[in-house]
Structures are given as structure tokens and as C-alpha cells.
């Protein structure tokens, strides 16, 4: 059996990559996908701990996270499409009218 720390470490690395992706890219969809990556890494941590503690509620939680992620993606992408209709661009730097 692998120590659970390995899985948690992997989860952390994926999470960091996701964070850097959110902060670095200008493309709104790429940012969104980076967020999905972060969620995914959290799911991995959940499952790892569920396996260690023999608690099935960890996996239940992952189930719910996936459902919420799906809903969130639906709404988010609808938003991006709506913004694209107005601004004709998915560059998040263009959406800065709250400046100042």
C-alpha cells in the first residue's frame, strides 16, 4: 500500500498548476479549465482520505462536487458566450469596466 501522502502530494501539485494557470492565462475558457483542474485535484485528495479512513462519505462528497462542477460549467460557459456576444472577445483583461 502506498502512503496516502503520495496521493495528497500529487493533489497539491495539480492544484498548484491549476492556480498558476488561473492567474497566468488571459483566455477565459482556459481559466475555467484550470479551475476544473483545481476541483479535480481536490476530488483526488478526498478519495485518498476516504480510502485511508474507510469512510465512504468522502466518495459521496466527490460525487456531489462533480455534480456542482457540472452545473457550474454550464452556467459559466453560458456567461462566457453571453459576454462574447457583447465584447466579441474572451480576453478577461477586456472586462475591466470596474476599474478605479
Amino acid at each position, binding site marked *: 500500500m502506498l502512503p496516502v501522502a503520495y496521493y495528497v502530494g500529487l493533489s497539491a501539485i495539480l492544484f498548484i498548476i491549476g*492556480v498558476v494557470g*488561473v*492567474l497566468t492565462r*488571459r483566455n477565459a475558457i482556459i481559466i475555467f479549465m484550470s479551475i476544473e483542474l483545481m476541483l479535480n485535484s481536490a476530488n483526488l485528495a478526498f478519495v485518498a482520505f476516504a480510502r485511508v479512513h474507510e469512510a465512504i462519505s468522502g466518495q459521496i462528497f466527490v460525487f456531489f462536487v462533480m455534480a456542482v462542477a457540472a452545473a457550474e460549467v454550464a452556467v459559466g460557459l453560458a456567461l462566457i458566450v453571453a459576454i462574447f456576444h457583447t465584447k466579441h472577445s474572451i480576453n*478577461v*483583461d477586456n*472586462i*475591466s*469596466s*470596474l*476599474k*478605479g
Partner: protein
Amino acid sequence: MFLSEAVSGGPQFFYLAPWIVFFPVIGLLINIIFGSRFNEKVIGAIASTASGLAFVVAVLLGVSLIGHPEGEIVPLVDWITIGLLQGRWAFQVDTLSVTMMLTVTGVGTLIHIYSIGYMHDDVRHNGDPGRYRRFFVFLNLFIAMMMILVGSDNYLMLFVGWEGVGLCSFLLIGFWYDKGKDGIGNAIAAKKAFITNRIGDFGFLLAAFIMFWAFRSFNFQEVFAKAPEVAAIAPGAILAMTLFMLLGVTGKSAQLPLYVWLPDAMAGPTPVSALIHAATMVTAGVYLVARSAEIYILVPQAQMWVALVGGITALFAATIALAQFDIKKVLAYSTISQLGFMVAAVGMGAFVAGMFHLVTHAFFKALLFLSAGSVIQGIERGHHHVEHDPKLRKLIKGQAHDFDPQDMRNMGGLRRQMKITFIVYMIGTLALAGIPPLAGFWSKDEILAEAKLLNPSVYWLLTIAAFLTAFYMGRQILMVFFGKARSAPAEHAQESPLVVTIPLMILAALSLLGGALNLPWFHTFTHWLEHTLTFVHAGEFNLAVAGLSTGLAIVAIILAWLIYSRRYEALKDLPTAKRPDDPMRSYLGPVFSLLENKYYVDEIYQALILKPYSALARFLAQVVDWQFWHDWFHDTVIAGGFRLFTRLLAVRIDLGFIDAIGNYLGAITRGLASRMSLLQTGYVRTYALSILVGVVLMLGYLLLR
């Protein structure tokens, strides 16, 4: 004497005492409130009735006193009650006060009746008929105030009346307040009277303060009872009190040095001169000394001073009267002189003689003044007649405005035109000169007899004054009624109406018969006054004194006749320019001018007292009050300092400091805000970055803990 035996225990009317004040007050109130609707006769009738009713009350009080000679105190109302100070208005009805009441109301009523006719002409001559009512209101007010004065039972109420008659004097002297020299001459004379009286009142007040301090009371009976023991402990207090009272007497009764108001008071209408300044108000001083007799006899030095003041004044005023040309001024100085007689009498201790002379003097001096008024109006009527007759107008060409109806040099020979006035004037003159058997002889002679016994120096002063009195009265009668008329109005003078002459006739009768009051063998008046002034004694008849005074009077009259009748005729031959207006001028020369100018006393007072006082007042008002106090202190120091202070507060502190704090806070906020707003880049990525920064930091902190 037997009157009191017959009526002893007789009817008592003491309770009527307050009505002697109330009747005149009611009269004046009716005239004030309703007078504008009445015509002149009704106004005069109301006033005279009020005065007459007061006289009736006085008579009834007198009748009561016959049965109950010790008199009674009739309290009316408690006025002041503060600790020891008890000021009560109560009437002390005794023989002394009833004597005064009878004199004042009796003569007063006659003068009221006289004024009905006199003022009718006077207001028309002076051009304002609307003032008729005011005159009678003031006359009634005077009677009321005089009754308060003589009827009170304590010095406090006496002073109330004292001040009240002073006020009435002022009001009546200044009756024609817009006439006189330069349009304010009468007002100035009234003011002079009031202020000079006030100096006397100041003396009276000081006496009252000392009295309260020594006796703790103002009541006559209490003070007189305690007087001997206080005199033993503190004789200085009694002396000071009596001397200050003397100051009050010199003010009110026109003695030296405060007599100067009386001659100027002739600016008032003639009835005023008769009533107030001859018969009644001026005698208040004599009454005061007589009333305070029990105090005066304890201090012989004060008595000597009183007698001296009276004697010197008598002589002094008589000399001035020799050289006066205004008919009323002569009578004014004569009044001062006769008051000197009275004051000297009560000063020496001859209280009965003084009061007797007071009563007879009231009769004949009032008579003389009223007759003088009749003469003046006769001349005015003549003047009016001449002015309006085209044939006679040319006679007074050029002297219309300056014509003085009171100047004796414009009169002469009036005995033909004004017969009744002449006869009564003659009676008055003889009474004043002291020719027996008229009233003046008996009263003046009693004074002289007492003076010979008590105070010889005063006796000689008074005798010389009596000689001069007869002389100047003879001069007056000769200048006015005898000889030829010296001016056109005098030629055409007319007699006065009956309403004027009838009071004159009554007064003349009183002057003839008044001596019966106290003939030396009956001493009616002495016994009457004995009940109040218990220590008086009956004066003896001194034939030598009587003979000397009568002889001097006759000599004086003959001398006057010689100078003013014979010599005057002789002087007629001189051309007009060199002819002196008075034969005495050629005899006495510069002395006559001195007498004519009243020894320049008024001018001396003006220079020594009034001018420095006005200068001081002006200095205090202009320099001290306005320039220093108001301009400098208030404006510069207080207001300026305040303004400086407010400017400091407003500019330095409020604007400079407090506003600066507010502005500074605002500036900081703005600076802070503008810097903070840089955080709001509008880029979502930066917001996310900041979250990450926070996470990193927190994680680091948790790890390193």
C-alpha cells in the same frame, strides 16, 4: 374765655378732619375729569366751593375745639411701617393747626372767588383761554397740600405737605410757561423757586434724619415728650436738628440766604402771589418753628440764630423795597420783610406774637396783592381801550410793546378811576404800616414789645424795618394813586368787576377788625394757643414801644409824602432828559442803584455758585462721561478689546486651527482613497492573485508556527 365755658363738652366734629383735605381733592378731580365740558363760571364755582367747604370744616373743627380745647388726633391710614419707622397719616386737630387751617382756607376761598373774575381777563390778555381750568385745579391742589402740611401729626406727613406746596408753587409760578423774558422767563423763575426750595428741603431732611436717629420717631407728641432727656444726653443733636430746620425755614419762608426765589415768583398770576407767596405757603416755615417750639426752647443758641436771621432779613428786604418800581416786586420784598418779623418772633420765643402777625399779615398782604392785581388789570383795560380808540392811539405811538402795566412809573392818579381799589389799598397800606387801630398795628406791636424784652438787638433791627415799611408803602400809594397819570393807559384805567372787588372788601374788613384777635387786654388768641403751646405767656402792652413804632410810622408816611408828592412836583420843571424817575435817586445816588439792583445778590449767586456748578456738570457730562467713559473706555477698551478677541477666536482658532484640522482630515482621506483606488484595477486576475497571496501567507504562517 366764657365761650369755652358755655360750650364746654359741646359738639364734636373732629371726625370731619380728613374732609379738609378731601374736599379740595374732590374739587380738583372733578375739574380735571369733567372740566372740559364746563364753562368758566362752573369751573370757578366748583373750585371755590371745594375750598369753601374746606373752610366750613375748619370752622367746625374750631367750634369743636372750643368745647374740647385739648384737641384730638384723628388717624386716617397707616402709610409706612418698617421696623421702627412708623409713618402714619393722622390729623392733629389742635388750636395751632386749626388756626392755620382757618387762615389758609378762609383767605384761600376769597382768592378762589377773586380768581374767577381775574383769570377771565388774564387768560384773554395772555391769549390762551384754555388754561383757565388748569389754574383752578392747581389752586385746589395747593389747598389740599397745605392742609396736609398743617394737619399732620408727625414730621413725615408734614414734609409730604411741605413738598406738595413747593410743587404747587412751581406749577403756578410757571403757569404761563411760554411767556416771560425770551419766552422762557417764567419757566426759569419757576425752576428757581423749586430748586431754592429744594435746598431748604435738604435742610429739613437732614433735620428729619437726625430726629429719627435721636428719637426713633417722627411723631410730634413722642418727640416733644422725649426732647428734654435727649437734650441732656446729646444736646448737639438737638442743636443740629433745629439749625437744619432753620435752613428749611429760610427756603420755604424766603429768608436770607434763600429768599431769592420770591421776587422772581411774581411772574405768576397775581392770585398766586397773593395766596401762596403772601398769605399761606411762605408761612409754613413760621408754622414749623411754632410747632417745634418745645424743641427750640431747649436750645437757646438756635433760637438766637433764628431770631437774627429773621431780623436781618426784615431790614435787608425793606431796604430793597424802597427802590423797586414794579408794583408786585415792592409787595414781594415787603412779604420777605414781614416774614422776617414773624420768624424773628417765633425765634425769640414769642410764638403767640408770631402766629398773630401771621394771621393779620395774611389778611392785609392778600388784600394788597389782590388790589395790586386789580390795579394792573385796570391799567391793562386802559391800555386796551387806548389801543382800540383811533383818536387816542397816537398817544402811545412807539411804546405799545414795551408797555409794562406793572411798572409804577406808568401809573399815577388812579384814585379817580378806581375808587374801590383805592380805598381797600389804602386800608391795606395803613394796616401794613402799623397804624392803630388796624390789625397790623396790634400784631407788629406785640412782636416789638416782646423783642424789647427778649432780644434788644433784634428789637432795633425790627424797628428800623418797620420805619422803612411805612416809608415804602407810602411811596407806593403816592406813586400809584396820587398825582397825575403818567401814561395814557393810566388816564383811561377802569375799575374791576364786582367778583374781583367783593373779596377785596371782605379782606379789607378783616384788616380793619383783625386786631380784635388778640387785643392786649383780652389775649383771646394767647389763651387759644395756650392749649397747644402750653408755656406761652401773655404779652404785656408796652406803651413806649407802641408809641415809638406808631410815631415812626407816621413820620415815615409824612416823609414819603414830602418826597413823592411835593418834591416830585418840583422836579417836574426839569427837562425830561434830566428828570430822574424817582426823587430818591437824586438824594441817594449810587446807593439807590444798589438798592434797585437788589444788592446784586442774584448776580453774586450766579457767579459764585451757579456758574461753577454748571461748569462742573458740563465737565462731568462731556469729558468724564462721554469722552472718557463712553468714547474711550467703552468704545476703545471694551468694544475694541472684544472685537480683537473675537477676531482671534474666529480667524486664528476657528478658521486657522479647527478648519485646518477638518481640511487636513479630508485631504488625508482623499489621498488615501486615491491611492487605494489603484487596487481596483478592474482585472479579475489581480483579484485572484491577491487571494493567492493571502493563502500563501496564511499557509506560511501556519507552517512556521
